[in-house]
């Protein structure tokens, strides 16, 4: 997936919803993955779980700290990336592809419009890097 075509939550998750589709792919941005180096464990939700925009859907653990993974939208988990649980390095190698986290059946596709586009997300990243 091309980073330029994705939508982003302020909490660094990306989401991709193909036009006309109900099921979106959700992942973690490269910026966030790089900031989290030394990942050792990830917890993803059960399939079927209802998720809410801005609420945790899982956690990712690095040597130094644990971070919540937030759902960018309301919806229901329809698939989780089992391959990722077994080889967490996929997240670092290909955060916008094989390192995806979950697939969510989106309650309201229009909700994606409220998320950041690539340019806005880049701006946020630049600001965070300043700190």
């Amino acid at each position: 997936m091309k980073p330029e075509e994705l939508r982003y939550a302020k909490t660094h998750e990306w989401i991709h919803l193909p036009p006309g589709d109900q099921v979106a792919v959700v992942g973690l941005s490269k910026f966030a993955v790089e900031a989290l180096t030394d990942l050792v464990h990830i917890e993803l939700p059960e399939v079927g779980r209802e998720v809410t925009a801005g609420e945790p859907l899982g956690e990712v653990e690095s040597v130094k700290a644990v971070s919540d993974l937030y759902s960018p939208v309301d919806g229901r988990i329809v698939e989780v990336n089992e391959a990722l649980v077994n080889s967490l390095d996929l997240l670092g190698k290909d955060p916008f592809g094989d390192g995806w986290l979950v697939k969510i059946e989106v309650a309201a596709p229009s909700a994606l419009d409220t998320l950041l586009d690539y340019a806005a997300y880049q701006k946020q990243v630049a600001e965070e890097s300043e700190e």
Partner: protein
Amino acid sequence: MTKPLRTPLYDWHVAHGAQMVDFAGWSMPVKYTGIIEEHQATRAGVGIADISHMGRLRFEGPGAAVFLAELLTRRVGDMELNQVRYSLVTNYEGGILDDVLAGYYRNEYGQPFYVVVVNAANRQKVVDWVHAHLTPERAGRPQHEVIFTDVTHLWAMFAIQGPRAVELLQPLVDVDLKWMRYYRGAQVRILHPSARRQGGIISRTGYSGEDGFELSVGAEIAPAVWKAIFELGEPLGLVPTGIGARDTLRLEAGMPLYSHELSEQIDPFQAGLGFACHLVGYDFPGRDALLDLQQQPPRATRVGIELAGRRIARQGCLILAGEEPIGHVTSGTFSPTLQKPIAMGYVDPSCAQVGTQLLIDIRGRHEPAQVVPLPFYQRKKGKSP
């Protein structure tokens, strides 16, 4: 907030891609490439860490030995020349103010001096404690004078740790490192033009559970000496290591860290540091309290903990036996050597036996864990003397 202090190696760290963090008032590298990578390089070969943030307090003069004996929990007067000893500083209640390394050396005129290495976060506290006890009258007592200097900013300090540390450093110093015993040190000449004929202090000490050394050199020559070590280290696979790996290394080695396992609310016996308290002989602050505490029934005890799952128990996590809270976690991480989460914490003495099954509340979920022996990792002892 005041601007964090910088070690003489600050520019080097930044130029070499370190992620810098504010640590105990200093801007320090948490990692360069990755904590796990740096950790494993130290275990397998050799790593170097800038530990110039550690406080270095120098005591000299004819009264220095007695003054320190009346300050530290462990004897000083019977130390051999060039010996280093782990000790504590306690308050009058027996609580731990700091844990320190005291080294005994002689200057070029044959006069003894002591270097006490204190935690960065505790430096001001210990300096204030020293001043409170080293009154001008005490410092100037005829024939028992004590000269106290905080030399932290004058000296840089490097930790060179790993099985190849001897091989790496031998060409740089004029003492035979192979025969230097553990917890012994020496004043050395740095055999490199960049050191401009200056000397340093090297000791076979560390905080990693590996063989290794800590080297102190003057702040002015520190960047050049650091670079010289890298020239020597390149064929050996030397890597720079940050405070992230320093933490995982010491945790695997079961070594306590101040503000985690140690605090003013913890006494040495609970922490498993009774060996560092000599309660007969010199009177030091806290000695009477410690004599008393020694007779008390056991209190919460420091233990090692291994988790069954993959989630990491962090400082502050509650430890339970069944439903009942019986302690809390003081440090936790993922052990790169064991490839599983490990932790240290304080538990009720009834739950401190190795093999005791526990639960740890990690963000609301109770994860199974058990008490295991400390340390988690012990190096295979070579033929080092």
